[in-house]
């Protein structure tokens, strides 16, 4: 079969172009080949050598055999070797039914252990509370290490020791919580096996739901609604907001809030902050967004000199948390001490954010009690026996539940910027952006760093958006350099999301993330914004109401006390 592919394509890509799947356990679409697993070997021309399809560039006129009896036998033996070094505890594994190793072993029809098992006795790392690492299940594909070092520039993970003792571990053999890890969870999203999984807290949530003394409320993040469907056979990007509300009520939550409401609230505070700094000169520029907890942790560990630039506005999760336990509690006459709040998040770092600092207890209680990732949420639905696909569309609670299209945009990279600019423009000029200018296209898309210049009443506002922590350093160094040279900042407003694509590509989202999938989820987000009549955070009637009834003014005293936080310089290594 002849195949024509772009220059620079690998044999693996070329085979995929003609619907041939060469097996691999280490190559991930997001990453450069590590060439570790050895499964993608192919035959080229008459050569005796068997190069790896993932790492071999295709050449003109190359003749490639991707499948034959010999290759299949070698691949099978390699899989058997990998299984001989794996606990094969599939039934009790977090990836049961959704594991690349399990799938490939199944596809190759492996029915018995032909090689005696040898698995090192290694303690799991549960130190972060966000991510669980079971090193015995690691097949040393190298994805997480590449994700952590190169994609995210965090450098928490590395390989230690060599030979059969080679293992993935936090660099320096310390615990993950002592390492520079920011709990973004991208390692878990890219792991082919159950070696890195989110800390599953579904049991805790079930217990709370069954506890009649607790008044369980829930909030669901913007990006969850366009990704959850993948676990139930929907095409990626399908907006399932209505069904999610329904299922949450059926699960027993007494109030269903939407984090997107709090995204609008965040925008009001953050846009006000920006206007304060930009127009009134109060505070440092650029203003940098702070709604991503992994990014906050990264900044505190690596760029603490930017603390004055950070928006003090809390993330939507925490804003909704404190509003539920103050405003909602008093409006509904419920003792906030009995309110148990669960958040459904695309993110493993959100679990960490719950107890990040004392400001996360602004209501006098722990504002949000537990954060579940999308993956855990899907698991809960499946446990509940509810036929998710057949559910009717539900509604959120009208208080803390209504949201604008701008709030939905939070779920993808550039979205916070876009939403904030829509409102900041209004705050400065007193009028909304023209209809054709509402979509701020330059901040959309998957380029690692995006920048734009916007005209606000004759003044240029320069903004930049970075996603994927690996892109941040480059951006911030230009700011730092300008500051050192005494020049005006290259940007006035910067948005950073730790995960590539933003929250739709979060570390807690359903598996299989790659740019293609990110685009589909992003489309779901953007379509949702487009489909809404309400596209400005400041026009959200519930937001208006909450300020007039309860909070007063953005950046006012009450808002400051409940909706803002502080940052501190933290050492990258805690040991």
């Amino acid at each position, binding site marked *: 079969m002849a195949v024509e592919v772009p220059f620079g394509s690998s044999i693996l890509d070329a085979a995929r172009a003609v619907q041939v799947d060469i097996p691999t356990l280490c190559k991930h679409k997001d990453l450069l080949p*590590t060439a570790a*697993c050895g499964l993608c070997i192919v035959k080229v021309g008459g050569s005796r050598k*068997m190069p790896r399809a993932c790492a071999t560039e295709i050449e003109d006129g190359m003749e490639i055999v991707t499948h034959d009896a010999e290759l299949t036998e070698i691949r099978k033996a390699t899989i058997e070797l990998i299984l001989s070094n794996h606990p094969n505890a599939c039934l009790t594994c977090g990836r049961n039914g959704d594991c690349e190793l399990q799938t490939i072993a199944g596809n190759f029809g492996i029915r018995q252990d032909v090689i005696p098992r*040898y698995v090192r006795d290694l303690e799991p790392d549960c130190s972060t509370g966000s991510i669980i690492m079971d090193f015995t299940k690691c097949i040393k594909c190298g994805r997480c290490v590449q994700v952590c070092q190169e994609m995210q520039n965090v450098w928490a993970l590395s390989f230690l020791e060599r*030979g*059969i003792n080679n293992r993935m571990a936090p660099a320096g053999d310390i615990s993950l919580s002592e390492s520079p890890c920011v709990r973004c969870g991208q390692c878990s999203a890219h792991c082919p096996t159950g070696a890195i999984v989110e800390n599953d807290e579904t049991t805790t949530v079930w217990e709370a739901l069954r506890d009649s003394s607790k008044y369980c409320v829930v909030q669901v993040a913007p990006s969850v609604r366009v990704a959850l469907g993948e676990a139930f056979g929907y095409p990626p990007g399908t907006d399932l907001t209505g069904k999610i509300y329904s299922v949450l009520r059926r699960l027993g939550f007494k109030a269903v809030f939407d984090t997107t409401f709090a995204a609008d609230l965040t925008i009001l505070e953050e846009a006000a902050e920006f206007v304060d700094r930009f127009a009134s000169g109060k505070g440092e520029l650029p203003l940098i967004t702070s709604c991503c907890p992994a990014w906050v942790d990264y900044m505190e560990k690596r760029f603490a000199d930017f603390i004055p630039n950070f928006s003090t506005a809390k993330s939507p999760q925490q804003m909704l948390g404190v509003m539920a336990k103050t405003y909602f509690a008093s409006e509904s006459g419920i003792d906030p001490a009995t309110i148990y709040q669960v958040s459904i998040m695309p993110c493993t770092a959100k679990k960490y954010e719950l107890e990040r600092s004392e400001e996360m207890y602004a209501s006098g209680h722990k504002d949000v009690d537990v954060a579940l990732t999308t993956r855990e949420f899907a698991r809960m639905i499946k446990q509940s026996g509810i036929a998710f696909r057949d559910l009717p569309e539900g509604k959120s609670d009208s208080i803390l539940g209504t949201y604008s299209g701008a709030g939905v945009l939070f779920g993808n990279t550039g979205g916070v910027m876009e939403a904030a600019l829509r409102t900041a423009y209004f705050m400065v000029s007193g009028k909304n952006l023209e209809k054709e200018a509402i979509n701020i296209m330059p901040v959309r898309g998957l380029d690692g760093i995006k920048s734009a210049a916007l005209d606000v009443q004759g003044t240029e506002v320069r903004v930049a958006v970075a996603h994927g922590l690996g892109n941040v350093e480059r951006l911030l160094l230009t700011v730092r350099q300008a500051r050192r040279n005494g020049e005006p900042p290259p940007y006035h407003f910067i948005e950073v999301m730790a995960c590539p694509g933003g929250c739709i590509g979060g570390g807690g989202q359903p598996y299989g993330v790659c740019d293609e999938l990110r685009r589909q989820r992003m489309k779901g987000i953007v379509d949702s914004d487009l489909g809404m009549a309400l596209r400005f955070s400041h026009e959200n009637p519930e937001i208006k109401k909450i300020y007039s009834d309860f909070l007063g003014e953005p950046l006012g005293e009450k808002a400051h006390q409940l909706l803002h936080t502080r940052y501190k310089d933290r050492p990258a290594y805690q040991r």
Partner: protein
Amino acid sequence: MDSGGIAAGAEDVVSFFRECGERGEVALPVVRTGSYGYAFADPLVEVKNAAADPPVLYGLVDKAVAARIVEEHIGQGRLINDHIVASRIRGLALDGPTTAILVKDTSQEDGDKTKFLQASILDELKNRDYGDRIQVVRALDMGIYQEGVVVQLLPSCVTYTNVLSRDIARIVDGCGPSGAVLNDLLHSRPDTQVRIVLRNCGKMDPESLNAAIAHGGYEGLVRAFTDGKPEAVIETIQASGLRGRGGAGFPTGLKWKLTRASEADHRFVICNADEGDPGAFMDRSILEGDPHAVLEGLILAAYAIGADKGFFYIRAEYPLAVKRVELALTQAREHGLLGRDILGSGWNFDAEVRLGAGAFVCGEETALIASIEGRRGSPEPRPPYPSVSGLWGKPTCINNVETLAAVPWIVAHGADAYARYGTGESKGTKVFAVTGKVRNSQLVEVPMGTPVREIIYDICGGMQDNLDLKGVQTGGPSGGIIPESRLDTPVAYESLQALGSIMGSGGMLAMNENDCMVDVVSFYLKFCVDESCGKCAPCRIGGYQMLQLLLKIGRGRGSLEDLEQIERICKTMQCASLCGLGQTAPNPVLSTLRFFKEEYLAYIEGGASYARKRKRALSEGKSLKEAG
């Protein structure tokens, strides 16, 4: 003296001579050299008395022997018994009177025959009144083996073999002023060895640039600069047929050509001195014995490919080599052989040393590059080859020590002079470190195509203790084992590969009838298992699991299914491992399964009791024949 000599006590001997010099007892300068290659006779001392006298090489010199050298040889002109390593030059004519006769029984039963012959010759000399003029000395080694009693006349180096009592009178006759060579006894075959790479090792002070220049150092560089363009150097190396001596045997000239052809603002050259095969010490000896030759080779390589920076990647376990290379770099820099505008050519180049931290896999070129860059030393997939994208993404040429040491000689003497030696596809000479159960472990340099048998028997004196040779392991842990029946195989890349072995870097280990192949193979495989970086699954797990199966067989608990599984894992490792370490680690297993399968089967059929019996026999020093 190299590290081997120092380990054998050479430092004591040097300080003894120095002290004698300070006390005025010795008027001669004391010079440290590299290793001559005669590891079996370390420490070695060469006495170069007056210009007229031929130099005399003494082996196994300790302080007591050194004291005798000072008193008897230097003081009184008397040679010392049982320590002389005879010259490998085979004289064919007696020019001038004989001053000394070396005698040595070269049969394996070295009893009193040497002493008896010595006494007989002395008697005969006395009969002719030569007694006070000609010394008769028992030698340590003649470089000739299994040829009965060997006699060498000095200074002519005329050598007689298979000398019997009845020949003594004739030999002594020949020592007279009008003596003639006895053609029936004459050993006229020239020495098998050809020293190109080892040309200066053991002959000069490796810490002196002047000595290097006096021995022809940097002639190649001067010639390259005066003769023409860098391309001309590449052409010469291509015409010489030189192939990489690190193991894979890639044509050196082609590698240079490809690196030069890669467009870039910088290019790098690296000398790979991460020698790590068990039993291999070629590269160490060269670096310790003639560092300037390797440096000159590196400079020539850099000039040829257009590099501006070079590295010596030397394993940290070679401190003396590191010291001598550092010194050579400093000297070269001071004398304008490195740095800006080298020898007025307008071309700039400098080099520095980087230490390897003890990982065998860092000899693999992509892992070596990672190590120099400060990353974990794990191999990367190739292509891209380093010649296109190597160190810091720049075109990089990596050559082994021995390859680089041959380069200056080729440039100075011409491609034809080098290509004269060797076989069709394997040109020139190759250095081997011959160890194991041979009589004389040593470094040898022979033309490609020399049969293994000749190296083991004619150069290294055959096997110790008259035991039968079972096999010769070549190529270290990546190589195979050549059985006795294939010993006439010439050493060349193709012929060794056809036997399931490889040339490798040049380790050659002889095994005798008491060596158990299952044990030997387990040892080599364990080496690879320990040294695997653990990156790719086939090598990381395959090596470990295969070793478990081999050990199981060695305990007498194995089955024929285990043997099948071993062969299956071998195939998987060969085809699916990422780098050479994993791809070649099964070679010892496969070659022994081919030539010594009966030993595996004996364990499988004999079971645990057989395995115990063999282990006990070996631990009690009994032969396997006795154990049955």
